[in-house]
């Protein structure tokens, strides 16, 4: 019989609290760093939440589930791993306290523990439902007016009050890499974006492209100071030439890409080769004859390539020695074992398709390069090439990023920060409010998600702001340091208060109140070293909120849609204190996504109430992808 273990709410809380106690040590501007040591003696300092959590030895299924959720969230948004765990633990604590106080809130149960578990599940479901239906409107009405939108069209310009994406990037790099290199990497990042920005196109297109192609677009170099990081034109292929590279020629070079083997592979294990001549199987022709035929076919392929003027061969697979000899004799440069990402980038930038059938080589397979030469970066030789007429064809100036650092681990850290910056920007560009909604003066009671759902009648209603429109705003940012949490806490509190007043039941506590309470844990931890600063920050943010709620909608200026061409959107700027900019900026959309992700993880956690112990390890797809992600970065570093 498979052993079964019952999971209790306290188990879940204990597990998540253990993870919280780890990330708290690195959380906030005063947070410390975790020292990682390797068997080889290499050390690394990091305060990246995702890196710390994925480094832990966790056999507990709930802990693994939480880390998996954090990893997935960080892969999409690029930030917020520590805040994720912090918010999750805080919500669990509040739900645990509520369920313990009133375990039979929804329906009676035989045991207290079962009642608590059921209550907690209901609360989590209600919270998620509330967040999916109401939260975006609350954020748009109560948080966005106190932020502003940044323009992502001109990355190198600085506007009057530094209200640009540069400020957002500096804040991001500061949290990830520290004060020393945040400005340097901000400039490098903006330069990279400006090179790759497609003219007359949305900035998100180039950012998405860079995010997808980043593994092929950057090279990590260790043993060199960080300030040596730079951009170089063209593409860098992280392989060396397999054949001697002739001297650089001035005229444009022709190149082709091969997906398979130029020389057909000879027999592998369990293969059967039938040698025929016409319709009969010949017995006097052996394997030697077949092998010499394959070598002649290679020479024929090389001759075809020479007729097209091809001098550079890029191969995805390792070629045989006969192919290398033939290419050397023909004076061609051959690069083998090129990764799929690099081949994909090459084909996108050159506009050619890879050759899969060596007997069919056409002009559309041949790319034109400006140059193709070896490049020494650190201790490795790479292939450096540039494309002919790329700027005219694709309207971009392709360039590759070289990230330098004293150690491999630090270079990897910088590269991860770069990639996460792309993801953060992509998330920041997503609108908070997906659809335009017109809020009527009164809304039917089903919008109030209180705990006692059965008690809501048709007469009850929630008071909301009249005649407002949620507008799709992109690139909205707000000052960091807990501003988002304070504003949303107040908005949720007001909303919950209005719901409980309208429902007219003293025992009803809207789930919005639970979320409001949990949100405060984030700024509380940011200012954990000094409670006075917490109170000052809260007072400063609360002072922004107008006393009359209708004054807010009167000052809210409408826009027709997404941002236009470089103009700042008409978010309310009057109440923004420039002092807030010293704290840095964070994206409202990222915060919204974070809250949703936390609530979804919470629901999944509380839906688990039993553990079945199996004798074999069951790997899920996400676990395999997480391991594959770690192993693939291992393979890259080994090369």
């Amino acid at each position, binding site marked *: 019989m498979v052993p079964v*273990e019952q999971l*209790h709410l*306290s*188990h879940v*809380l*204990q*597990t998540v*609290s*253990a*993870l*919280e*106690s*780890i990330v708290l*040590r690195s959380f906030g501007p005063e947070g410390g760093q*975790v*020292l*990682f*040591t*390797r*068997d*080889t003696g*290499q*050390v*690394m300092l990091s305060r990246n939440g995702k*890196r710390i959590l*994925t*480094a*832990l*030895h*966790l*056999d*507990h*299924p709930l*802990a693994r589930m939480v880390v998996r959720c954090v990893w997935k969230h960080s892969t999409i948004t690029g930030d917020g791993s520590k805040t994720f765990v912090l918010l999750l633990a805080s919500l669990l604590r509040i739900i645990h306290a509520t369920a313990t106080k009133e375990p039979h809130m929804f329906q009676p149960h035989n045991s207290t523990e079962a009642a608590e578990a059921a209550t907690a599940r209901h609360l989590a479901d209600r919270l998620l439902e509330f967040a999916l239906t109401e939260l975006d409107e609350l954020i748009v009405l109560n948080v966005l007016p106190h932020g502003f939108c940044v323009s992502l069209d001109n990355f190198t310009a600085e506007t009057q009050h530094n209200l640009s994406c540069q400020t957002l990037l500096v804040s991001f790099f500061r949290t990830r890499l520290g004060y020393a290199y945040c400005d340097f990497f901000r400039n490098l990042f903006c330069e990279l974006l400006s090179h790759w920005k497609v003219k007359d196109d949305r900035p998100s297109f180039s950012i998405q492209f860079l995010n997808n192609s980043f593994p092929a677009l950057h090279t990590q170099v260790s043993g060199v100071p960080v300030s040596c990081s730079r951009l170089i034109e063209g593409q860098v292929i992280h392989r060396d030439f397999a054949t001697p590279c002739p001297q650089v020629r001035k005229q444009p070079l022709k190149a082709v890409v091969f997906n398979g083997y130029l020389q057909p592979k000879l027999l592998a294990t369990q293969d059967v080769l039938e040698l025929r001549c016409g319709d009969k199987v010949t017995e006097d022709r052996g394997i030697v004859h077949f092998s010499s035929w394959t070598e002649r076919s290679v020479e024929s392929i090389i001759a075809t390539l020479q007729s097209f003027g091809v001098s550079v061969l890029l191969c995805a697979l390792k070629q045989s020695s006969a192919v290398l000899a033939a290419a050397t004799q023909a004076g061609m440069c051959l690069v083998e074992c090129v990764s799929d990402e690099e081949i994909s980038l090459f084909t996108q930038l050159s506009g050619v398709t890879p050759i899969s059938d060596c007997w069919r080589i056409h002009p559309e397979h041949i790319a034109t390069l400006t140059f193709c030469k070896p490049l020494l970066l650190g201790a490795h030789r790479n292939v450096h090439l540039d494309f002919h007429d790329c700027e005219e064809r694709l309207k971009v100036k392709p360039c590759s990023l070289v990230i330098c650092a004293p150690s*491999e*681990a630090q270079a*990897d850290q910088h590269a991860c920060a770069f990639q996460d910056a792309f993801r953060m920007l992509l998330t920041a560009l997503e609108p908070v409010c997906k659809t335009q909604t017109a809020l009527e003066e009164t809304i039917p009671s089903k919008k109030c998600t209180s705990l006692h759902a059965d008690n809501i009648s048709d007469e009850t209603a929630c008071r909301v702001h009249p005649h407002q429109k949620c507008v799709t705003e992109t690139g909205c940012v707000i000052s960091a340091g807990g501003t988002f949490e304070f504003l949303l*806490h*107040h908005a949720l*509190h*007001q909303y919950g*208060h209005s719901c409980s007043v309208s429902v007219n039941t*003293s025992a009803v506590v809207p789930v919005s109140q639970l979320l409001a309470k949990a949100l*405060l844990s984030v700024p509380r931890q940011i200012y954990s070293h000094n409670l006075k600063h917490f109170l000052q920050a*809260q007072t400063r943010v*609360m002072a922004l909120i107008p006393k009359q709620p209708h004054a807010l909608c009167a000052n809210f200026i409408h826009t027709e849609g997404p941002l236009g061409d470089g103009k700042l959107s008409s978010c309310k700027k009057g109440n923004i204190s420039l002092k807030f900019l010293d704290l840095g900026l964070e994206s409202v959309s990222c915060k919204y996504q974070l809250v949703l992700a936390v609530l979804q993880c919470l629901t999944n956690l509380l839906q688990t109430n039993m*553990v079945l*112990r199996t004798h074999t390890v069951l790997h899920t797809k996400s676990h395999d992808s*997480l*391991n594959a992600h*770690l*192993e693939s*970065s*291992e*393979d*890259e*570093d*080994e090369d």
Partner: protein
Amino acid sequence: MALNGDEEDFEWEPPTEAEMKVIQARRERQDKISKLMGDYLLKGYKMLGDCCEACGVSRTGPDFKSCVMRGDWIWNVSSDISPALTSSAKISFSRSSVSSQAGVSVPQPRPEHCEGAAAGGRALLPPPVVASTLQPALEEAEEAVLTKLRWATTQLQSSASLEASIQLCSLIGSCANSLRSLRELSQ
């Protein structure tokens, strides 16, 4: 924290002093357990999937499983709290490898590393044969020390002499130190 807290004050009743003490003690205990667990995890210990059945019972075996509640100072703290709160710390740990290296190992991309933070990497555990011969002796020694401790406590309660009381107190202190050493040996 709410600005409109005035209306709530009429419905909310502050907890009594006893309730506050219980709440405070429970919170502190939870925080201490979480911090201990976090310390162990960062040192390379593995959080196992099973829970400790009874608080304070340390399981020995090839994996050297132990409950985070084991440890003298936690034991002393838990004895001051109401019995309703002394539920076991439901998470258990195991030392996945024995290492003399301090710090946390990196999840860096190398084949010898999987996904965790074991600083010692893949050092082999001590052979179980050693544990199986040592364990009965440790248990016997622990029982003997506990018996002497109980006897000394009884004697101390009935003792009227100052010198005898001082000697009994020093005996109790020595027994406690011996118990601590025995438990560290068994882990």
